[in-house]
């Protein structure tokens, strides 16, 4: 059903000098502590990472609850911030597609799609035989997902022992890790323009509209980058 060797190859991406374990641990420990602050008990905090597993959305949820937003408003705000997962899935899953593989693998494993797992898979898929790429992805997904859940629990439990400066220190780790990964991914002109354009437009449009910033910045910078790549043969 699942190719064990390839699955473990995916799982092993948690180890080594390019390990995502530290940034994942840092940001989900910080999230666990924040959720405790927002009134979540241990089970609720763990359930949030188990079922959502997308940090920016979980932050939006916690902050919306703190200001007393309605459930509908939370739904819309989270949908807008996590909509990035749609283009991210479409730019990864066709690479993992193989006719011999059952569809349920794709439908279930799309839950593992988050920035960390996406960046690791984008970097490593070429080394894996096409037929087994989805098993490689499931290995990466199970590894990063379970780390996130475990660290949320640890964060919730250790919230009382951490001061604010420590939490701020933990919170910077994730954007730093992602930026480094993205710079590593800037191997051609269109991706470089996409990354630089998005970084500039994201905060700029945020000044005008907090909710729509990501969507518009992504569409505009992405389309410009694509057209540039087309014109210059990448």
């Amino acid at each position, binding site marked *: 059903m699942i190719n064990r060797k390839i699955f473990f190859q995916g799982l092993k991406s948690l180890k080594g000098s390019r390990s995502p374990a530290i940034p994942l641990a840092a940001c989900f420990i910080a999230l666990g502590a924040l959720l405790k602050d927002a009134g979540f008990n241990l089970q609720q905090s763990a359930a949030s990472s188990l079922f959502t597993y997308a940090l920016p959305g*979980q932050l939006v949820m916690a902050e919306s609850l703190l200001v007393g937003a309605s459930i509908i408003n939370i739904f819309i705000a989270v949908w807008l911030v996590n909509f990035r997962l749609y283009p991210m899935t*479409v730019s990864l899953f066709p690479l993992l597609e193989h006719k011999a593989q059952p569809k349920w693998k*794709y439908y279930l494993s799309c839950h593992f799609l988050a920035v960390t797992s996406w960046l690791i898979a984008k970097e490593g898929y070429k080394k894996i035989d096409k037929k087994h790429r989805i098993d490689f992805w499931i290995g990466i997904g199970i590894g990063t997902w379970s780390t996130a859940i475990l660290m949320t629990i640890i964060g919730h439990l250790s919230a009382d022992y951490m001061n604010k400066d420590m939490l701020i220190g933990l919170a910077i780790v994730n954007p730093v890790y992602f930026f*480094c990964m993205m710079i*590593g991914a800037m191997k051609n002109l269109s991706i470089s323009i996409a990354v630089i354009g998005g970084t500039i437009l*994201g905060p700029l449009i945020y000044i005008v509209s907090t909710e729509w910033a990501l969507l518009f910045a992504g569409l505009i910078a*992405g389309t410009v980058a*694509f057209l540039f790549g087309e014109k210059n043969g990448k």
Partner: protein
Amino acid sequence: MESSQIIVLAIIATSLATFISRFMGALTSEKVSVNSKIFQWFNCVAYSTLAALLGRMIIFPAGVLADSDLFIRTAVLIICIIIFIVSKKNLVLPTLFSAIILSILN
């Protein structure tokens, strides 16, 4: 409504709102070929949306990070990117350093 019920509803709403995008992505992927132009476009949009999110996280952060100074956050980011490049793309070093430097500077 009790606050615990609201939290449970919020978890369900957040999870649904998140899974919709992932699942729609999996469905769309079945019709997209790796060699097509539309795949290239999705790839560019994915990278720039992600970059937009990261830019926002540094300039206008949510959560505890908002209590740190913008100048210090940017400085930490630049130092860590330099460490990343100098260390031949080691990811553990810059991430470890980022937490330590920010905790000290803050």
